[in-house]
């Protein structure tokens, strides 16, 4: 409560007492320097404290007051503490105390409220100082807020009070800073913990998923190795809703095992399904054979029947003395037989039936799903579409070894590359000698062989569509070994050289009739020419080239030599666009592999894919544009493509851009869905290296041209991209197996 301090000399104590009474009657508390003093208390500190805390100081001045040192000290202190001072002149004995009291009361009531705050401040500051300036005695919160404005004006408070407020504010800043730091730290830590927990959870989940996938894969592979039906069951047991493609691939691979289409148990009893084996359709031998012959070869087994020796035969049928190919078998063979077309050698052992390529001695297909034993014999159907096995107990099984592959021609040409022509209705395959095999893209039928380039080129290497539907561009070396670009008119059967920049010795060519440009490269630089005029539009340098493609927008896609890189150059640009490597689940798997050079490129609706050397070592890449930026990822993944081939040289995209087909050196054709690079089925029903591919106009099949001149038609299985469809097929396979008594 605010009070007055009256400074007066002792001699006027009585008058002051009366004045005090009058003031107290006006509800004004009065502090007098003797009234409050108690026995034994020191005067000065009490008076100082009283003055410091007084809302107003009244100086009861008289001659005695002025003569009193303590009174003058009190006035000094009042001024020191900036107390409002009211002076009463008491020189005259007849002082009107009523008037004085009223005067003082009026001044007291009119005093600025700030004065009380100052008094409070000074008192607290003094206490703080007397208490050792401890932090806990500093002003806080509302208290401090009251004091701060006082210190902004000079000569309002004492230095001690200023220091007190300053220290209080400093402490407040420290506390606020500490709290802010703590808050930031807590928030950051919380965010980090949350993020870390999220990342850890994600990583853990990915880890678990990977581990689960591995375990799932191992289980599936073990089951498939034991039996195709166990593999089918294992694939069916996998969670179809799981992320990723492993489940899909497992189902595909389970279905790609060749199992019997018909089976007859021992004794000739027909199976419940009625799918009996027509024994008369197959000419089984009485006993197993140790020799077989076909187109240009003659095969025999070793005395212990553990090896096969394939010798070449000439046109007259003479057999070479020494074998050109030796095959070591897993088990002694019980029977060997050549296919009716003489291009496949079938071998049966106690472990199963295998089909071999007699030219190289490689096994390209295993026929499984039926029990084999010693003494089995084989027989082909007359059309070579089916192969039957009969066991000593009379049981028999029939397989269809190549349900999806139909050989349509044997040209004897050494195919190098191919393109679609005539609006996709035809496929044109380029042979090494410059011959062009023209094939009906729907049926695979060989329509004719164009030889107008044969005398011009000694080594043809690359082919691209021409500006019109019946034209193609061919790159090769002429009779003197100089690189040459020719334009072939398939209708007119003519070929003419095409002028190229003088400093360019073309090795690779790619065109886009829609975009009207041609890209030509010598391996070190790429020149983009106008397709109609042949004028050079731009030149891309500094990027090595091992494969080239151009899309309908005019983008040039370049596969680079040596590291397997894939880049894109936008229309009008001469430098590759910036690409971001994005791997699987954020893990980059697109690092360059020494020697892994792309050999073929194809551009679909949203992705450009490459295949080439070193397939198993990041040998397939894909580029896609997402929101204006190019992302590089893996195309065909070796993990999901069951082939041992080291190289893929053929790649094509369906007319609607929805499916890629890649051809491998071991004869495998693998499909890939363009939109999301989902793996499709793989087909290996022949052993010749696939050198070129072209889709049929409706995208339901690809026409493949092989290294050995074979042309085949391979059907596209759209259902292989759908897990539900695959599961249906797996179930159907198991049901059939059970019906046949095979499971």
């Amino acid at each position, binding site marked *: 409560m605010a009070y007055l301090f009256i400074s007066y000399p002792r001699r006027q104590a009585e008058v002051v007492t009366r004045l005090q009474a009058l003031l107290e009657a006006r509800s004004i508390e009065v502090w007098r320097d003797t009234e409050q*003093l*108690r*026995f*034994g208390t*020191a*005067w000065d500190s009490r008076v100082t404290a009283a003055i410091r805390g007084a809302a107003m100081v009244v100086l009861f001045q008289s001659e005695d007051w002025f003569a009193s040192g303590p009174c003058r000290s009190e006035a000094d202190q009042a001024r020191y503490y900036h107390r409002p001072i009211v002076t009463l002149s008491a020189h005259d004995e007849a002082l009107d105390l009523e008037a004085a009291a009223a005067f003082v009361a009026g001044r007291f009531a009119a005093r600025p409220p700030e004065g009380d705050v100052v008094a*409070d401040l000074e*008192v607290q500051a003094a*206490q703080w100082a007397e208490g050792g300036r401890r932090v*806990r005695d500093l002003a806080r*919160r*509302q*208290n401090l807020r009251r004091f701060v404005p006082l210190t902004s004006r000079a000569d309002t408070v004492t230095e001690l009070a200023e220091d007190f407020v300053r220290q209080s504010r400093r402490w407040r800043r420290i506390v606020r800073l500490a709290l802010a730091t*703590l808050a930031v*730290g807590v928030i*950051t*830590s919380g965010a980090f*913990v949350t993020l870390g*927990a999220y990342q850890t959870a994600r*990583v*853990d989940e*990915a880890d678990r998923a*990977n*581990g689960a996938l*591995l375990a799932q894969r*191992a289980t599936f592979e*073990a089951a498939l190795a034991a039996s195709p039906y166990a593999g089918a069951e294992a694939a069916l047991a996998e969670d179809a809703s799981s992320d990723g493609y492993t489940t899909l691939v497992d189902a595909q691979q389970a279905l790609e095992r060749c199992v019997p289409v018909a089976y007859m148990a021992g004794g000739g009893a027909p199976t419940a399904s009625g799918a009996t084996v027509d024994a008369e359709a197959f000419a089984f031998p009485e006993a197993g054979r140790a020799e077989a012959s076909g187109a240009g070869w003659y095969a025999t087994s070793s005395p212990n029947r553990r*090896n096969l020796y394939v010798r*070449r035969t000439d046109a007259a049928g003479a057999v*070479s003395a*020494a074998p*050109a*190919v030796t*095959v*070591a*078998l897993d*088990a002694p063979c019980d029977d060997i037989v050549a296919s009716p077309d003489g291009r496949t050698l079938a071998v049966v052992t*106690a472990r199963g039936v295998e089909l071999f390529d007699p030219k*190289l*001695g490689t096994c390209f297909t295993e026929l499984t799903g039926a029990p084999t034993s010693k003494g089995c014999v084989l027989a082909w159907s007359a059309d070579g579409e089916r192969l039957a096995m009969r066991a000593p107990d009379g049981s028999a099984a029939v397989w269809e070894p190549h349900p999806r592959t139909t050989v349509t021609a044997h040209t004897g040409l*050494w195919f190098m590359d191919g393109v679609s022509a005539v609006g996709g209705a035809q496929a044109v395959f380029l042979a090494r000698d410059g011959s062009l095999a023209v094939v009906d893209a729907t049926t695979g039928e060989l329509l004719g062989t164009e030889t107008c380039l044969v005398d011009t080129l000694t080594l043809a290497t690359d082919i691209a569509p021409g500006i019109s539907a019946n034209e193609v561009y061919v790159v090769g070396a002429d009779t003197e070994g100089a690189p040459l670009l020719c334009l072939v008119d398939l209708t007119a059967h003519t070929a003419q050289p095409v002028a190229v920049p003088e400093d360019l010795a073309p090795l690779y060519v790619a065109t886009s009739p829609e975009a009207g440009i041609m890209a030509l490269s010598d391996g070190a630089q790429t020149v983009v020419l106008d397709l109609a005029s042949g004028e050079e539009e731009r030149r891309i340098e500094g990027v090595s080239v091992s494969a080239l493609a151009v899309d309908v927008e005019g983008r040039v896609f370049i596969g680079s030599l040596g590291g397997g890189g894939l880049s894109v150059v936008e229309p009008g640009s001469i430098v590759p666009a910036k690409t971001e490597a994005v791997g*699987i689940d954020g*893990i980059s*798997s697109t690092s360059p*592999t*020494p*020697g*892994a*050079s792309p050999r073929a490129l194809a551009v679909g609706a949203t992705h450009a894919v490459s295949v080439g*050397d*070193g397939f*198993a*070592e990041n*040998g397939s890449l894909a580029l896609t544009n997402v929101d204006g930026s190019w992302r590089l990822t893996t195309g065909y993944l070796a*993990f999901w493509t069951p082939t041992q081939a*080291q*190289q893929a040289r053929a790649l094509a995209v369906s007319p609607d851009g929805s499916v890629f087909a890649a051809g491998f*050196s*071991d004869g495998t054709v693998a499909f890939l869905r363009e939109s999301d690079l989902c793996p499709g089925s793989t087909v290996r029903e022949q052993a010749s290296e696939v050198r070129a591919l072209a889709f049929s106009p409706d995208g339901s099949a690809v026409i493949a041209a092989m*290294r050995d001149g074979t042309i085949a038609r391979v059907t596209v299985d759209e259902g292989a991209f759908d897990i539900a469809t695959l599961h249906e097929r797996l179930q159907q396979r198991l049901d059939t197996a059970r019906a046949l008594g095979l499971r």
Partner: protein
Amino acid sequence: MDARLREHGVLLCACDADEEAAATAAVAARRAGYEVRRENLAPTSNQPCDTPCDITLCVVLLSEEAAAAPGFLERANALAEHMPATIPVRLDGITPERCGAPGSPIRERHWADARNHPSIWQEIFHSHVWLYPAYDDLAARTARWETCGRDDSFLMQSVNQAKQACALIDEMRDDSFQRPSDAMVRYAHASHTFARRQRKRTRRHSLVLVAAIAAAVATVVIVRGVVAAHVEHAVQSAQSAYSMRLETDPAFFSFQTYCAMRDAGGVEPEQVHALTAGLERPWAMGILGTEDFNAGGWQGEGVFAQTGAQYWVRADGGTLQQWNILAFEPVSTIRVSSSDAFVFDVTADGAAAVVADADGVAMIDLKTGERTALDTACTDSVAIACSEDGSQIAVQTASAIAVYENGARAREIDLAGTDVLALTRAAAGLRALRATSAEAAGTATTAEETAAGETVQLIDLTMGEVVAQAPLPAAEILTGTILPAGEALVCSNGTVSRLSAASALEPVGFTTRDAPSALASDGNVLVVATEQDGVQVVDLATGTVLETIARDLAGVCYLSISDTGVVACGNGFVTSIWSLLPIAPDIATVSGVTSAKTTYAAESATAELADAETLRIAQPEFALGASGSASDAAPEAVEGDSPVSATQPTTLDIPLAPYGDLGTATSVCIAPYGGAVALGFDTGHVLVFDLASNGQAYLCRAWQVPTADGVEQVGFSSDGARLIVEAAGRWWHPWSNSGCTSMEGLVSLLRARQPKRWPLAQWQTFPKDVRQQLGMMCATAAPAER
């Protein structure tokens, strides 16, 4: 302010003349509960002027006599100076001014007047003078508190202070002058309550603050570490999962699988199977040049020297890099040419190299780098070879093969109309293999023969004579290589044939899919690289493909084989080094133990065929796994095994039926350390079982002779790491993989088989302790050229 409550003791100071008053005062003091002590303050008193610690109040009786008493005032002032509270009491007309100098305690204190106040003594002894400062402080605080709307910030913050305030309130209840008001009482109690609450909160806040800070720091550190480690681990795991380089890099795959097994705490059945898959595949000795490739360098073709201990390879910048193949360390880099395009060969001892480039033909001292020009005119070289000592050099140009002897051009062989298929050093000297038209070769006797095709000739460059030749049918693909013994292999349209001294081409029984990128042979095997099928190792005796190696490289186009069966496969960027020991057969065998019997007895056990389908092991006690201990976690049986409980503690029957029709067992052998047994069959199959301490056997290797020859003898090398298999008179040495069913055995096995140097990118994916445990060494880049 801190007012210490003292024991209620009063010190009465009076002179002798005021004894009566003092007695009255003493009575009043005792009545008030004080303990009274009297102080005479006589000048003759020898009492020391100490402050009795039990005295709270000092009452000094002052009178004219006291003031006049000598020494009384001095002593009284001294006492007043040191007492907690002193009350001067006037007994007569004595005034304060006469009781001391200005500022002295007695003078400056407010006196009590006992002259006309009968109750003065009661007032005096109910004055808690020592508490008045505290009381005033409390009163001021209370006033402030009430003025400011009883804001909590004006309450006492300290619990102790609040307690003292409450005690003060109690003490002052009967004070003569100042009695606590209700507001003060409320303030004291409110302060106590508030302070306690604040203390609790403060303590809580402090704890929370400390804990939060510590937690924040620790969390940041730990989470960062954990997440980083976890992410790194998951990346590695996912890399290994998705890469799953079982086929292309089985060593890396196996090591990653081992890490996973180690983290899981031991061997799991699925993991054993998975690890076995990696162990069954061939592993490279290592890859040279990975770190240089990462820095933009490359490696081309190379040659072995010093019986395979050295490997010299052409590298970027016109340099030759020397590598120590035994330690897989780069030794030196020597600049030998002014351009990258040069051909070279190295003497057998690796001391010198012959180099042909655009500057001519020169001899380079590989120790000093000194270059000696031999023929500066020969600037269009495409191949070069030198004799073992370098005295003879053959250089192939576009038109001829020039032969230099002792630095001088000795002879020249015209190459018009011919294609040189190979130029190399054989045991008998320098040889060249060329294909020439029959007419040019002088072998055509008829027009048909003239038109038939080419003739392949093997030329002794020392003598300048054709030592063997044979007609070749027309072929689109033609290449060849010369064997160390002096014969040659020709690949014509893929068919590989041997050109023997009998001047006949005999197919070896192997055909390539397409034109080989490179060929190399040591006479025992042919190593052929094609784009389509990679690098295949072919047994020349049977034509059987023994293995496909270097699957981790693409585009291999350089091959070189040393005398010791080491193969270098280069693709123009890096070079992969492989040992043929576990792949190819030899007519000789390594030291070890073998048995041709169906019963084998060793110190540790006896193995025999109980019947056609059961292998029986009998031993006093079961041997431990390879370098394992009995405390190993018992490994689970590998899939396909049926763990057999021993019918007797020392006998174990291993059924063979689960492994299919393997034929008839021909031999059995127990490993030297006793922990494994191998069984060979007439079908060429070999099974190796680990004998674990739990009395069970686990399949650790199922191998088959690649040529399908029957096993005549089977055994182990002296350290048990390799199998020794005799089939068709030749010896095979595949890895036995014994010990892989225990963690300790795995460690030994992995240490023995691992690549001598790992590429840095792979090496970094393994934890440090794994690297140390397995002795994994990181590849280094070749030194800078000198």
